[in-house]
């Protein structure tokens, strides 16, 4: 069957005794978009890393056009035509966009040989990068330093890098986790072009609508096991979810059960030079306020300012009628504000600390006897939170690094909740989180509001903004363009204000 470019047989892989992959099969046709689906921690990224030679499987075969790739390193698989956009953005911050794109291929690009073969040719690199980005329709300067880019832009550069390899197989591990609809559309156009050229794509995403828009075939993994592969046409939304989580999810967005209470937070004419201007809104106890806008609209900046991570220049913030000007997160936390950052790795958790140590980090004052840690109260608080949030972990002592994305997110939310905030700001709370866990998080957010918290939810996924929010604040380029009630808001209306 020569129309399969890649055939994978009986791959297994364990990490220190724990089976991450158990006897996986996978067949990829030439020129197809093959989605790989599964919950957080199902083993998707691990599987892909095996394909490109970054990890070695315990057993099994990876056949690219009949040639076994097991044992090859990244360099060799790249040369043979498989490349990957990694889930965690892998860039060199101090190098430029162009330098990142062609990293590892300077020699090819420079076209020099002999004594000069070690010489860089940045002019050529810049030119090629410019042409490539242009072709993709992305507006990023090739000479910009990578560290000055937004996460979205970094992700676009990673995509550009993968494309520039002219590979036969491109693996995209959650390529759209940080980019907005406009860029997703660009990416999909690129994918269609590649397909037309006979390139095969393995596509991983937790955004279900994308899967049905782009994929031809869908393979599902669950807990490291192969569940099945079906053509996308055979599946619908519910059937796919059932394959992934092993059960049906009835109602995605839970309804409010409690009436709104008093106004808790009020923001008037808030501004920060160059970031946002004239922002005014309030949130009531029991309310979920959605913050919508395109990437770079300034939503995160507003949240950071309220939480004391950044300073602001004008306007005022009041909590229950007394003014707030937090200069540090500590002050904000003491005033009852909790913030779950969009940057889970950077601002969320401490990777080499345990679930328990992370989850109690903001509320050590509740678990202390003098300067000492009250281990009992800490342990019981952690266990309760693990149960409440249904965090999947081997124990309270497990390092957070080894949890799946969704569970890491829950740990961060748990940490914020343990500090018993009255106002909680959730910035992209479901980024990189699987459908099952998303549903859990939605239920959780609603229950927080029902318990009387004021919730501000920032999200780039319109369905979840629409499904959960009681009111929606729309931002565009740092300015407030609309404050919509639930009844007024539709996808179209929000988009209209977001681009205003």
């Amino acid at each position, binding site marked *: 069957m020569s129309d399969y470019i890649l055939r994978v047989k009986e791959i297994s892989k364990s990490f*220190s005794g724990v089976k991450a992959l158990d006897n996986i099969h996978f067949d990829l046709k030439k020129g197809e978009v093959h989605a790989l689906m599964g919950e957080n921690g199902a083993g998707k990224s691990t599987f892909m890393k095996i394909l490109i030679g970054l990890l070695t499987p315990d057993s099994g075969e990876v056949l690219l056009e009949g040639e076994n790739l097991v044992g090859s390193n990244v360099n060799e698989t790249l040369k043979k035509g498989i490349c990957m956009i990694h889930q965690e953005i892998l860039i060199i911050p101090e190098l430029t966009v162009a330098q990142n794109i062609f990293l590892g291929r300077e020699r090819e690009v420079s076209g020099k040989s002999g004594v000069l073969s070690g010489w860089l040719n940045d002019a050529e690199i810049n030119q090629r990068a410019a042409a490539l980005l242009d072709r993709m329709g992305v507006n990023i300067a090739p000479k910009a330093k990578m560290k000055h880019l937004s996460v979205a832009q970094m992700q676009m550069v990673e995509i550009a890098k993968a494309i520039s390899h002219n590979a036969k197989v491109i693996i995209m591990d959650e390529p759209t986790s940080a980019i907005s609809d406009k860029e997703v559309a660009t990416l999909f156009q690129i994918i269609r072009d590649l397909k037309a050229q006979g390139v095969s794509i393995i596509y991983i995403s937790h955004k279900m609508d994308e899967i049905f828009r782009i994929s031809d075939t869908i393979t599902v993994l669950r807990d490291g096991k192969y569940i099945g592969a079906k053509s996308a046409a055979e599946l619908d939304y519910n059937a796919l979810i059932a394959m992934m989580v092993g059960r049906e999810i009835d109602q995605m967005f839970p309804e409010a059960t409690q009436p709104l209470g008093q106004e808790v937070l009020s923001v008037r004419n808030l501004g920060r030079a160059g970031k946002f201007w004239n922002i005014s809104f309030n949130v009531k106890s029991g309310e979920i306020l959605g913050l919508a806008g395109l990437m770079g609209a300034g939503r995160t900046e507003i949240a950071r300012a309220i*939480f004391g*991570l950044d300073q602001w220049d004008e306007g005022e913030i009041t909590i229950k009628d007394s003014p707030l000007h937090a200069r*540090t*997160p*500590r002050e*904000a*936390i*003491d005033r009852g504000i909790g*913030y779950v*950052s969009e940057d889970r790795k*950077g*601002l*969320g*958790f*401490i*990777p*080499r*600390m345990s679930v328990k*140590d992370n989850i109690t*980090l*903001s509320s*050590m004052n509740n678990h*202390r006897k003098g*300067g*000492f*840690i009250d281990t009992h109260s800490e342990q019981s608080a952690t266990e309760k939170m693990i149960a409440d949030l249904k965090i999947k972990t081997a124990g309270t*002592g497990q390092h957070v690094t080894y949890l799946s994305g969704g569970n890491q997110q829950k740990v961060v939310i748990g*940490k914020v909740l343990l*500090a018993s905030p009255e106002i909680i700001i959730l910035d992209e709370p479901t980024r990189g989180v699987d459908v099952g866990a998303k549903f859990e998080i939605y239920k959780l957010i609603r229950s927080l509001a029902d318990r009387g918290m004021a919730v501000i939810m920032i999200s780039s996924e319109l369905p979840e903004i629409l499904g959960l929010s009681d009111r929606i604040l729309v931002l565009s380029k740092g300015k407030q363009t609309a404050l919509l009630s639930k009844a007024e808001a539709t996808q179209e209306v929000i988009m209209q204000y977001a681009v205003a």
Partner: protein
Amino acid sequence: MNRLSKLGQYGIFFAFALICLVLALSTPKFFTVSNLLIIGNQVSINALLAFGVTFVIITGGIDLSLGSMVAVTGVAAASFAHPDTYPLVIPLLVGLGAGSAMGAFNGLVITKSKVPPFIVTLGTMTIGRGLALILSKGRPVSNLSDAFNFIGGGNIAGIPFPIIILLIAFAVCSVVLNKTILGRYMYAVGGNEPAARASGIRVSRVKMWVYTICGLLSALGGILLTSRITTGQPNAGAGFELDAIAAAIIGGTSTSGGTGTMTGTLIGALLIGVISNSLDLLNVTSYYQQVVMGVIIIGAVVLDGVGKKD
């Protein structure tokens, strides 16, 4: 199982045990009570400094001024420790106070400026050396009281007093690191500073604490040394910082911050002490001592890595 995996982290412990076994087999003089007490005594100062720098390294910092702090605090304490002048508590308070103040100064500069700890403490290393020389006018401060000299030279029930101080310091440091909120915050700051800040930890305060504690422990080391050699030497402690940092890293503290244990550091310090003791016992020629020392230290950490499984 949790216990077992915890032990697994101390691969260095097995490397250390192996080295001791080899030594015990190669010379009968090694494994005697008196020699072990001598090793304990010799190790004590480096171990105290290593405990201090372990705190600092766990928060992702470094302290190169340890050795100079040993000199300044030793000279300062000695200046108040002449017989029939002040009661013993005065030189102790002066020494510990000077150390804490210097440590706090390190912490202050590091937290208030953007200057990396390496440069700040390299600066205070030089400054401290100068201060020690100025204070002592370049001459050893001697003629110290017997009470003061007991600290480093005395023993209780046959156990040298420095060993007792070492054990107490070890216990206190372990408790601070593992049982207090401050200790937890140190790991958090070193593990991910922005996340620690966003969790409401006052990062600057934690750093102030670790550098101050490091200064305090250096002062304890300085007092012990001064008392042991019965003089405050302005040039004491040169190079101690590298030994202390080495003990911490051999014991598994990572220079990138966020990990480390006091037990590991203690073993690291013991390892260095045991090797240098036994090279003398085995009468290895001094040139070769250095070669052997270097090889064993690298070897022990390699063994440690082999012992550990990922």
